[in-house]
C-alpha cells in the first residue's frame, strides 16, 4: 500500500511541520517514507506545501500529481487539489478559512473548523494538528498514538511545553471526525 | 712581502632550500635574488622540512623546480586560496605563496584580498616588476603611467586604462593583515632589508600571528628593454617613487618580534 498525502496552506500554518510529524511517525511504524517540500517557484504567494508518501515498499516518485489525501489549510489549496485528487480520495478542508464545499462527489470531503477549534484550545497555530488528528480518524494511515509519539520526539525543545495542547488538538480533530461519521 | 696565513672560511654557499640547478630566468632578473632570500630564511629558521610553497602562473611558474621543499602549482591568481586549503588542513606546516603582479594584483585580486581579510596564517612573497613577463611583456596592473609595454605600445594611458594598483597600501587596510611591507631588490642594501622583511613575515606565520605579505619591487630587463644595470636603476628611479618602500602594517605583536 502506498499513500500520498499533501499538506498545503499559507506559510506559517505549520503545513511543513505537520507533514514531518507524519513522516517521522511513518518511519517509527516501520514504513518507507518520503517528505518533500515545495520550494522554489511553488513558494510564490507564500504558499507552503509538502508531499508525504508512506508505503510498504520502496518509494519511487516522491511527488504525485494525484494525491490520495489532501489537508487543505486554505481555499487556494482546495481549489488546486480538488480536480487533481484520486477518485475515492480524502479531502480535509479547514472550514474556518474555506467557505465552499467540493463539487466532486467521488472524493470524500471533511470540513472541519480547524482554525476556530485551535483558537478555542488556546493557540490558532494548532490548526495543523487538528487536521492531522482528523485525517487519522477518517483514514487508516497511521495509528494516532504513533503520531503522538513522533510529535513528542520531534517537537523542537522550545515548543515542548505545548505538547499537551498539541495532543488535545489531535484528539479533538479525531473526535470531530468520529462524531461526523456517527451522525 | 710576507704572505699572511689566513683560514679560508666559507662565506657563501647554496642554501639547502634551493635545488642545485640552473634557473630559466633571464640575465638581470631579480627572481633569482628573491628565491635565494626566501631559501636563506627557510634554512636559517630550520623550517625547510615543513615548508609548502604555492607557485603562481607567471615567470616564477617553475619556482618549484628551484626550491628544495614541497611545492604545488596553482591556477593563475588562485595561490592564496590554494594555500588557504593547505594551511587549514595542515596548520603545522609553513605555507607560502610566491606570486607576481599579474597573478596577485590582477586575476587573483579577489583571492589575495580575502586571504588578507581572513587573516589567513600564510606568508605571501609578491614580486612586483610592473609587467607580465611570461606572456611577453604586456601591461600589468602595476605598470607605471606612461610605461610602454606590448599591450600599451604608446605608454600606459591612465585616462583609458586607469592607474597602477598599490597592493601593500591596499592590503594594509585589511583588519586581518598582520604584517604588510614593501621592499626593493635594486641594490645590496635594499636586498638586505628585503631579507629581513621576509624573515619577519615567516616569523609571523610561525607564531600564528596571521597574514603576512612582502612586496618586492623587482626588475625585468628583458621586457623593459633595458640592460640589467639600467633595469635596477629604473626600479630605483621610477618604481620606488610610485611604490614607496616601508612597513604598511605591523600589528603590535609583530612589532615586538626581534629579527
Amino acid at each position, binding site marked *: 500500500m502506498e499513500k500520498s498525502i499533501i499538506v498545503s496552506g499559507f506559510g506559517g500554518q505549520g503545513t511543513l511541520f505537520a507533514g514531518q510529524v507524519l513522516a517521522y511517525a511513518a518511519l517509527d511504524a516501520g514504513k518507507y517514507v518520503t517528505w518533500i517540500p515545495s520550494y522554489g517557484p511553488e513558494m510564490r504567494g507564500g504558499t507552503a506545501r509538502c508531499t508525504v508518501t508512506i508505503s510498504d515498499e520502496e*518509494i*519511487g*516518485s516522491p511527488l504525485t500529481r494525484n494525491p490520495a489525501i489532501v489537508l487543505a489549510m486554505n481555499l487556494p489549496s482546495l481549489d488546486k487539489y480538488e480536480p487533481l485528487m484520486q477518485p475515492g480520495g480524502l479531502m480535509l478542508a479547514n472550514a474556518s478559512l474555506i467557505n465552499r464545499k467540493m463539487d466532486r462527489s467521488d472524493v470524500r470531503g471533511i470540513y472541519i473548523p480547524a482554525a476556530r477549534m485551535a483558537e478555542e484550545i488556546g493557540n490558532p497555530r494548532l490548526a495543523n494538528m487538528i487536521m492531522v488528528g482528523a485525517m487519522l480518524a477518517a483514514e487508516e494511515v497511521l495509528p494516532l498514538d504513533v503520531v503522538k509519539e513522533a510529535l513528542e520526539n520531534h517537537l523542537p525543545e522550545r515548543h515542548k511545553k505545548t505538547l499537551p495542547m498539541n495532543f488535545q488538538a489531535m484528539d479533538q480533530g479525531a473526535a470531530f471526525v468520529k462524531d461526523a461519521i456517527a451522525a | 712581502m710576507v704572505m699572511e696565513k689566513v683560514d679560508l672560511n666559507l662565506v657563501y654557499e647554496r642554501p639547502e632550500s634551493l635545488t642545485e640547478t640552473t634557473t630559466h630566468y633571464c640575465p638581470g632578473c631579480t627572481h633569482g635574488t628573491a628565491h635565494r632570500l626566501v631559501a636563506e630564511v627557510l634554512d636559517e629558521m630550520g623550517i625547510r622540512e615543513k615548508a609548502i610553497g604555492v607557485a603562481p602562473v607567471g615567470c616564477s611558474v617553475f619556482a618549484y623546480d628551484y626550491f628544495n621543499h614541497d611545492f604545488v602549482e596553482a591556477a593563475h591568481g588562485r595561490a592564496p586560496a590554494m594555500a588557504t*586549503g593547505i*594551511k587549514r588542513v595542515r596548520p603545522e606546516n609553513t605555507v607560502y605563496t610566491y606570486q607576481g603582479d599579474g597573478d596577485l594584483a590582477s586575476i587573483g585580486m579577489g583571492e589575495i584580498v580575502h586571504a588578507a581579510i581572513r587573516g589567513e596564517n600564510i606568508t605571501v612573497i609578491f614580486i612586483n616588476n610592473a609587467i607580465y613577463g611570461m606572456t611577453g611583456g604586456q601591461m600589468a596592473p602595476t605598470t607605471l603611467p606612461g610605461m610602454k609595454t606590448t599591450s600599451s605600445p604608446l605608454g600606459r594611458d591612465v585616462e583609458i586604462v586607469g592607474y597602477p594598483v598599490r597592493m601593500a597600501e591596499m592590503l594594509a587596510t585589511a583588519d586581518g593583515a598582520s604584517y604588510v611591507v614593501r621592499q626593493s631588490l635594486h641594490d645590496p642594501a635594499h636586498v638586505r632589508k628585503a631579507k629581513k622583511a621576509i624573515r619577519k613575515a615567516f616569523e609571523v606565520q610561525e607564531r600564528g600571528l596571521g597574514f603576512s605579505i612582502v612586496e618586492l619591487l623587482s626588475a625585468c630587463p628583458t621586457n623593459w628593454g633595458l640592460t640589467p644595470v639600467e633595469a635596477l636603476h629604473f626600479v630605483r628611479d621610477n618604481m620606488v617613487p610610485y611604490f614607496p618602500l616601508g612597513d604598511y602594517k605591523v600589528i603590535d605583536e609583530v612589532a615586538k618580534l626581534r629579527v
Partner: protein
Amino acid sequence: MAKELLKGNEAFAEAAVRAGVEGFFGYPITPASEFLEYMAKRMPALGRAFLQAESEIAAIHMVYGAACAGKRALTATSGPGLSLMSEALSYIAGTEVPAVVVNVMRGGPGLGNIAPSQSDYNQMVKGGGHGDYFPIVLAPATVQEAIDYITLAFDLADKYRSLVFIVVDGNLGQMMESAELPPMRELRKEPPEWAVYGAKDRDPNILTSIYIDPPDEEITNIRLLKRWMEIEKNEVRYKEYDLDDAEVAVVSFGVAGRVCSSAVKTAREEGIKVGLFRPITVAPFPFKQIEALSKRVKRILVVEMNTGQMLDDVKRAVGGRVPVEFYGRIGGVTPFPDEILDEIRRINESEDAIEDGMEKVQWLERLEERIARGE
C-alpha cells in the same frame, strides 16, 4: 545503525563527515546551501577545517589545496557555482589529486532558477573544464544511495587519484527520506606518499598540472586515459527494475529515474512488459549494458529533466538497433509518474521507426500539448 528520517543535503554532508572528510570549503547557493550550513556546525566541532570562501572559485581552489595536502576534501554547489569551479576542476584532474564535488542541480542556463533539474549532465559527464580529462560521475536517486555513494566517491577518488562528482537534483537535496548513515570512519593517519606535507627525510613532492614539453603532456594524457579505461572496466554501476521479460525499456537517472520506477510499477499492473534501467555511474556510462539491453527489447524510452543530454549516450549505446524515444521536463519542472505512464502506454503500442533527431521533435510536440493542458 537504525534508519532515520534524514534531510537530503544534511545527510549527504554527514555522510562525507563519516567518510573522513577533513576539509570542507564552500559558498552559499540554493538548493545546496544546507550542505554548507550543516558543515559550518559539524566540522569545527570535530576539529576539522570548514571555511566559507569568498567565491566558488576560491572554494574549489581551497579544496584543491587540501587535496594536494593529502586530506579528503570536498565542496557542494549548484550549476552556476560549478561553472565558476570549472577552472580548478581541470587543474585537479591534471594534477591527479582526489577530490569530491557535489552538484545539487537546478534549472538553467544562466541564473535560471532554484528548482530541481538535471541540465548539468553534459557539464559534469563531458568535463566542463579545459583539456582531456574524465571525472567519475555518480547519480544517486534516493537519500540512502546518496549517502552510500558519497562514501564510495571518496574511495574511488583516492583509488584512482580522480575527480568524483555526485550529481543530485534539488529534489533530493531538499527532501527527507528514511535512510541509514554508515559508522564514522577513522581518519587517515599517514598522508599518501604523493602529497605535500613537508619534505622531511625524503625528496620534495611537487604537485602540478604543467607538462611544458608536449611529449610529457602526451604521456600524461595517455596515463589519464588508461586510468579512465580501467575505471570504465571496473566501476560501472546501475540498477535494473523489471527488465527480465521487458519489451519496452525506460532509461533514466537520478530522481527522474525513481519517478520512472513508479510509472513502470503501474504499467506492469496494467500488463505492459516494461522495465527500467537506471545508470548510477553516468560516467563511466553503462554503454555495454545498454547495448545488451537494446538487443532484447523492442523500444527504449529515455527520460531526463533536461532536453535530452544523456539521450545521446543512450543512442550511441543502442546504435540504431531499436527506436529510442525521449521524454523530458525542463527548466526546473519535475515530471509526475502519470506523464511517464502515458509515454510507456503510447510506446508499448507504437511500431513506428524514428528518424534520428525526430525523437526530440515529437517529444516537444507532446510536451507542448501537455503544457497547454496546464500540466
